[in-house]
């Protein structure tokens, strides 16, 4: 990994971490709209995979989408404004945390229905294949989603059509309250790839470099037209399932074990050990990101609230040539 890449990826992970830490505080200290699902602990996955994607490559995201947005390069200001339900939010206050996404950087949406992004990713990959655009699709989903019918149908189609998609299973051990081994009869979700004629690999999802390397192979394979890959990243979510969920179903020892291998700490130690960078540079990035997050909060706070009926413009795309094709609201 080159120095510049390493620094960018470090910055991305810090951005995700601090973005969410800030939101956690905000939710504690002031009324915030809706809820959120936090990504803390899983930063290396989104960042390691998106490192290989171009701006015009696609991703699909989930209810736990903040990290995917930042890793794909979405504007922190627009993300924060969406969390505040402001008109300057990336989804114009229509989606909130659960559907946070930015099409301008290739996000096809954050689906709140578990597993539902997977067939969509397959469709985008098909389109890329058809258009010979060379675009690759990365599809993020959880261990829980791997038990939805949509997972199996999507992988099968991608396998049989040899589509340029990388399925990224973020196995963070739990689907809501349920340990994945209570609901999944195989140790590795990656093993399921065999049924769909694609490689399945297991990777340490806390280790940015490991994710980075596996994703390189998978994206390269997709780009060359050789088909899909299923990468299972073993990772962990530090927070409860959602903002107000306390995660009493897991032990603090378990959490501590995983935290010892925190993706930011691991990568930081690696960088310092490799002498690619010095501590001052990393601290500089940390401080920089702090400012960036403060600026985003300022921006969000000072942005206009939507008006009650703003939603109307988003129900249908109105085509002026065919004005009668669109029902007026009752």
């Amino acid at each position, binding site marked *: 990994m080159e120095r510049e890449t390493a620094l960018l990826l470090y910055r991305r992970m810090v951005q995700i971490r601090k973005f969410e830490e800030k939101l956690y505080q905000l939710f504690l200290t002031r009324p915030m*709209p*809706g*809820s959120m699902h936090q990504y803390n602990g899983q930063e290396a996955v989104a960042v390691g995979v998106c490192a290989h994607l171009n701006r015009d490559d696609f991703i699909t995201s989930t209810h736990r989408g903040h990290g995917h947005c930042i890793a794909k390069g979405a504007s922190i200001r627009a993300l924060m404004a969406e969390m505040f*339900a402001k008109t300057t939010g990336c*989804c114009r*206050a*229509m*989606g*909130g945390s*659960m*559907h946070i996404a930015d099409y301008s950087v290739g996000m096809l949406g954050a*689906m*709140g*229905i*578990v*597993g*539902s992004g997977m067939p969509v990713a397959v469709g985008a990959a098909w389109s890329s294949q058809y258009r010979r655009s060379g675009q690759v699709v990365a599809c993020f989903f959880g261990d*829980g*989603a791997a*038990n*939805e*019918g*949509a997972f199996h149908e999507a992988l099968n189609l991608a396998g049989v059509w040899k589509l340029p998609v990388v399925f990224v299973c973020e196995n963070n051990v739990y*689907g*809501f*309250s*349920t340990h994945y081994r*209570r*609901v*999944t009869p195989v140790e590795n979700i990656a093993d399921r790839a065999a049924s769909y004629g694609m490689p399945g690999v297991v990777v340490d999802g806390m280790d940015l470099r490991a994710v980075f390397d596996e994703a390189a192979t998978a994206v390269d394979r997709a780009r060359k037209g050789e088909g899909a890959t299923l990468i299972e990243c073993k990772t962990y979510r530090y927070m*409860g*399932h*959602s*903002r*107000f*969920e*306390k995660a009493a*179903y897991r032990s603090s020892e378990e959490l501590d074990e995983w935290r010892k291998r925190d993706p930011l700490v691991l990568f930081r130690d690696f960088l310092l050990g490799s002498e690619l960078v010095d501590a001052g540079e990393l601290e500089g990035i940390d401080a920089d990101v702090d400012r960036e997050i403060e600026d985003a909060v300022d921006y969000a706070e000072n942005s206009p*609230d*939507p*008006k*009650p*009926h*703003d*939603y*109307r413009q*988003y*129900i249908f795309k109105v085509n002026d040539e065919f004005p009668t094709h669109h*029902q007026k*609201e*009752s």
Partner: protein
Amino acid sequence: MSYVLANEVRPIFPGVLGLMPVKKIVDALNQALREEMDRDERVVLLGEDIGVFEGSYRVTEGLHAQFGEERVRDTPISEIAIIGAALGAALTGLRPVAEIQFNDFLACGMDQLCNQAAKIRFMLGGQVTVPMVVRAPYGATGRAAQHSQSLEAWFVHTPGLKVVMPSTPYDAKGLLKTAIRDDNPVLFLEHKLLYGATSPGGKAQTAVQELGEVFTPAPDEEYLLPFGAADVKRPGSDVTVVATGMMLHKSIKAARELAGADGIECEVIDPRTLVPLDRETIIDSVKKTGRLVVVSEDVMSCGVTAEISALVAEHALFYLDAPIRRVAVPDTPIPFAPVMEQAVIPQIGDIIEAVKSVVYR
């Protein structure tokens, strides 16, 4: 109204026996499940996070501990398999109660529910019965378009399913027990804001504190409530208001305000079950009042308000002194921002305005 359980029904009114009534819908549902599981070992539960975790809205609290893994089963996140397995079990001697975490996710298991469960008895010429219940929360609580819907109309539109929407602890318990004893697939929809519980997966949101005496507690006693029997939650002579779930309570509040400030007396009717629908109670009320306002949290087009309006137009048109008014979500998905959500969800003010318009005030 022909209905299999109607003659078994012995409603017991709260307080009569002096036992501690439960004041929350979440507890009423829990009691119903517990009593039915105690009574009949064919009753089994399945769903996501319902066992060890005791349910995302705590409806199944204590049941895994009491009845064990065999009868309270945590499933993978697999709505097709949850509903399909309930169906298979129902066809072969069990009486499963499945929980779908939000009614929006019923869409994922739609084929099993609407093409299979709803039709299998019909297709087999009555050879089988399908004693299964699918429970699911509905309603808007600030969680944007995929977690806020009220989808009852989809299922009312699917013959073969019964659709239940209780608005009080008393109704919730009696109707769930009836649902479990019914030999047909029953969809049991529970409004998130009426549970009286905090979702551990969501913000502490509940509206039950301010609901007043209409929010009747459930006695800690065996009773069943019939399907197809609407309940007149508030008698009145001027305007008939029909509403379910959360909208029932908003309608009651509107009615109180209208009675106080404007001297308009609304008769507020809760159908309680949309399939079967107690048409007589609604039609008779309209014949008396000459005016109808229908309130619902589902969308306007082809929604529950459309159905009830059509019913009255067909059977009581010449009794009407004013056009029917509907208060429902306009034809839009639910937006995220609270100001926009509030704008699309019917509010008390909207109901008041509609009622005034039909009495020309």
